[in-house]
């Protein structure tokens, strides 16, 4: 039984959310500003979006970033899911403490350290810096986030489902693909999306590990921000926010639909 939701509670939530959202809202609003001054309103205009699409450097960087994000998120999801399985299913093997340390440490490790160390590795093995090295770096960082997301789902997973499948003669690999994978799929999808946005977002590690010809969008935005705040950057940021927002909405709708479908199936099964 939950007691009163006091006025103090409501106020702190409203203020907290205002703090979280107001800067983003202002950024979006001022991307439609006619005036070149970012902070003075000069009327509604979409001209910055038009000039954005004529900025070849920015468009190239967007394309590089999108490719890095899709590839690294996909590989990281596979590796992260394997890592999550290892953490939850194999409680005893040599070097397990080291393994869990290597999964959790990158979550909090300052990015300058991760970026520098990966760069020195790539130099040591003689790999030219560019698209490949950024992608490898992003896989390493984001797989740990995927592992944590998937692991939290695996911990609450009802293993009697797997046992039932194996009792009925399904081999473990088949059991995994037919029972375990569908159940943990929502976690895997949100892990992929988290990896995707982290990669889309990363400035520090990309700056260390990328080379000529592989400038990512955050690197481009960063170099422009250093020269001054312009509505064009606001417009670029707004588009990025919109892309992510649409992705999150689609994912949560799909999740809801699956949930409804599952409930319907369960009801049907009970009736049948």
């Amino acid at each position, binding site marked *: 039984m*939950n007691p009163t939701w006091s006025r103090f509670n409501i106020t702190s939530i409203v203020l907290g*959310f205002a*703090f979280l959202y107001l800067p983003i809202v*202002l950024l979006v609003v001022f991307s439609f500003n006619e005036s070149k001054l970012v902070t003075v309103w000069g009327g509604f205009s979409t001209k910055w979006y038009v000039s954005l699409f004529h900025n070849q450097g920015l468009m190239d960087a967007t394309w590089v970033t999108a490719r890095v994000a899709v590839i690294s998120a996909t590989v990281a999801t596979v590796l992260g899911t394997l890592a999550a399985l290892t953490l939850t299913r*194999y409680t005893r093997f040599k070097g397990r403490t080291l393994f869990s340390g290597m999964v959790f440490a990158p979550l909090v490790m300052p990015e300058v350290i991760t970026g520098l160390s990966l760069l020195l590795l790539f130099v040591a093995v003689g790999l030219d810096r560019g698209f490949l090295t950024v992608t490898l770096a992003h896989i390493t960082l984001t797989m740990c986030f995927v592992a944590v997301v998937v692991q939290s789902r695996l911990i609450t997973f009802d293993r009697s489902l797997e*046992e039932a499948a194996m009792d009925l003669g399904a081999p473990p690999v088949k059991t995994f693909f037919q029972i375990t994978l569908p159940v943990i799929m929502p976690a895997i999808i949100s892990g992929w999306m988290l990896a995707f946005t982290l990669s889309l*977002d990363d400035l520090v590690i990309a700056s260390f590990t990328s080379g000529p010809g592989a400038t990512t969008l955050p690197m481009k935005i960063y170099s422009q921000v250093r020269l001054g705040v312009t509505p064009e950057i606001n417009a670029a940021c707004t588009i990025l926010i919109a892309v992510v927002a649409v992705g999150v909405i689609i994912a949560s709708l799909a999740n809801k639909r699956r949930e409804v479908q599952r409930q319907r199936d369960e009801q049907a099964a009970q009736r049948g």
Partner: protein
Amino acid sequence: MSNAAVTAATSSRATAAGKSALARLGEAFVSRLVILIPYLWLVFFFLIPFVIVFKISLSQTAIAIPPYTPVLGFGDGLAGFFAQLNELSIDNYTWLTQDALYVNAYVTSVIVAAISTVLTLLVGYPIAYGMARAPAMLRPTLLMLVILPFWTSFLIRVYAWIGILKPEGLLNQLLLATGIISQPLVILNTYTAIFIGIVYSYLPFMVLPLYSALEKMDYSLIEAAKDLGCPPTSAFWKITFPLSLPGVIAGCLLVFIPAVGEFVIPDLLGGSQTLMIGKTLWNEFFANRDWPVSSAVAVILLLLLIVPIMLFQRAQARAQEQDK
């Protein structure tokens, strides 16, 4: 039932089902692979790089590509290896301790991160508490709203604050228009701007563990305390806060550790007047192209953070045990 017991039970059942030795061998191979693939990946891309950083921090700067003298290779056989051992030097470390700039940068970073962590806790606690006491129907939406900003770019969220904090920015415009101040406040390019940036960017990391600790709490304890005449404030300090302590610890570590080495926030909001170690390392690497010194900076930063990182890992492992 423990995992080992489950595995034992399932495998004995599988044997009873008449499984061939070959299938069992395949199964062992698959489970070996599940462990080995992510394991080797992390060893190669996470652990070995640190060894290389350490190694290069002991080498000398050279005008070459890459800009350091190679040390400790096995190219010349064992004798060559020992010859190179003599060339290792701790010059870079001596240099770091003698130059006040680096010492200051480390100390300032730790202090700034600690203050920001406390501020984030003070801002985040009421939000998490309010969420945990919200009607159960509203909670998933509130949770979603806390996570959502995390999906938008970190760089963008920091950038948004430049427009707000600038001398001619929105905050000053608002304060001047309402007559609260008569002179624009200088916030951008000060430590205050860094505090605001860190609190803002890391707030979800604080709220989420706090919320999950507070949500699990049994509120009948508070009611019992109230019935026995305990005033709300002391009920909070005697019951609610101690019970939320795991969340407080996890949240503080999640904010403190990355904040110490933060680069984007001090660089964009702190300007050139503020000193933090992440920025120092960046400049050492990108502006001075001194790879050995930046490696030494990274090694010391890592040593500073190793205890908090291990605490974080233990807290994670414990939380995981409890979830089981």
